[in-house]
């Protein structure tokens, strides 16, 4: 069986600056993979290349064995590739429930209908509410997204991605911008994700990375520096020097 997501020899430059250099990675079904690396290592660019928000200059992206390199973002999404954004991308002027109904509606092709009232499909509303309930957002269903605290908005961001029923999910710093008192809510959700979904997470918090990931990819200056299991990465001298080493200088806060 082919991998859920496979990236081969991906390259991309902004002008003269190479931001993605010959990146290869494979996510098997149910994978839990973290991408770490210093700021500017090209982690978000990698997500944008995989989802089609950016076009690679060379290389291939395969989803469940199908070459999706030339497909649009929307076509990739409809094939089961979902993402969250580092900075929330939500329908801020709409209610939380409408955000979810929109997602379910686009996923199942209801939004091609110009005539039927959008409220007439009870199944869509019920499913949207189910997604909200699983993230304990039911009480906020009728609130406008922009009225929610940032941490709750972050949960809506994840709820939308899950409502797409993805086979591959890319999480770009899901807890970014969330006060640490609330970040456990988001991390609990991430930890409880359907084991069938292949998940790639970009994260700065090493506690999260080592708790969540079964495999870690370290990126430096647009290229894969090294990859391996959490133990291998933790014990890798070069990684400690390049990346984790910075923490050592701060007096070993991790004990």
């Amino acid at each position, binding site marked *: 069986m082919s991998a859920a997501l496979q990236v081969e020899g991906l390259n991309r430059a902004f002008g003269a600056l190479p931001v993605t250099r010959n990146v290869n990675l494979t996510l098997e079904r149910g994978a839990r993979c973290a991408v770490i690396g210093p700021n500017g290592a090209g982690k978000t660019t990698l997500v944008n290349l995989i989802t089609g928000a950016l076009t690679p200059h060379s290389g291939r992206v395969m989803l469940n064995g199908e070459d999706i390199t030339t497909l649009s973002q929307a076509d990739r*999404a409809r094939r089961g590739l979902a993402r969250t*954004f580092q900075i929330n991308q939500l329908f801020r002027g709409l209610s939380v429930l409408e955000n979810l109904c929109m997602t379910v509606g686009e996923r199942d092709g209801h939004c091609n209908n110009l005539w039927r009232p959008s*409220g007439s499909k009870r199944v869509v509303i019920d499913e949207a509410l189910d997604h909200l309930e699983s993230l304990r957002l039911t009480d906020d269903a*009728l609130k406008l997204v922009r009225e929610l605290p940032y941490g709750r908005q972050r949960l809506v961001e994840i709820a939308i991605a899950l409502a797409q029923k993805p086979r591959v999910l890319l999480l770009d710093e899901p807890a970014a911008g969330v006060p640490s008192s609330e970040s456990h809510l988001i991390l609990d959700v991430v930890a409880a994700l359907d084991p069938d979904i292949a998940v790639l997470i970009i994260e700065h918090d090493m506690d999260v990375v080592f708790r969540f990931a079964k495999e870690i990819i370290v990126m430096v200056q647009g290229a894969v520096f090294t990859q391996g299991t959490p133990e291998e990465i933790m014990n890798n001298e070069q990684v400690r020097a390049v990346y984790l080493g910075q923490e050592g200088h701060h007096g070993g806060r991790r004990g």
Partner: protein
Amino acid sequence: MAVSDSVTTANRGQTRERAAEFILKRHRMRAAEALPWLVAIAAFFIVPDRMTFGSQVLVMVMFALSLDLILGYAGIVTLGHAAFFGIGAYTVGLAAARLQWSEPISGLFAAAIAAGIVGFLTGWLLLRYRGLTLLMLTLATAIMLQETGNLRSDISGGYDGLPGLTFKPLLGIFDYDLYGHTYYLYALATLAVVFYFVRRIVYSPFGQALTGIRENVRRMHAIGSPVHWRLVTVYTIAAAIAGIAGALFTQTNAYVTLTVFDFDNSAKVMVMLILGGTGRLYGAFVGAAVYMVLEDYFSKLSPAFWQFGIGLLLVLVVLFARRGVLGLFESFGEYLAERKK
């Protein structure tokens, strides 16, 4: 423990039901929606000698309504919407003057199809762009159409236009009358039909997707929405409706000149919509009516200086009532509801 559990379950069920109700009932007609129609019918009896003016108001309401679909709902900013109004106006004008095709209702269909085709083609090309680029490209489209008409003034009549057009009696029975009574009712009936279509679209899942594109286009791409096709579809529909408005304009005035393509016309309809309130269906009614009545009143008051009044009103609206005149009423309604609590 078991008791409190069942209580929370019941509460959750209630919360769910309330949330679902909101979406389920959103598209239902509200009593207040009868108001603009009652006003339009009342006007027919109260000021029967102003029905020619009344028809112009209805034409502009329809034009503004078509703009609301793309600007208010989908968030497409255009300065060339007069292009489609003009195509509709010239479709029936040329058909009557050059082809002796002067049956009014089939003329509306022809205008809708002609404007819709141009809307589809230009939309397919232009809607890949956004913001300033789109603004300039739509503006250029209208100017190019106008200049094409000017180039072939042997056909279009140029800036002298096609005067003295005659149209067949409506449905073969009701003839044009000096006070424009027939055409007022004709325009009102056409507006009602068009409005019904627009209302269906706005409350459909497709209409929701348009709102999504307006609110956050990146998110729409990410959830798999074919954004470009959604935009092309609504642009085509809006163009067709603008074409019908243009056709009504020609039919009620019995003349048409190339000024229908003017930048002025594109700008005016946008000002009307912003005055009334974008993305709220009835904003087109309020905006077009307020604009036209004030224009009529100010221009009598001071023929040289009337635009100052409109300009001042626009400044006040965009500074202090961002959601338009209609939004002002909504805020007032919400305020009253708050006080009741």
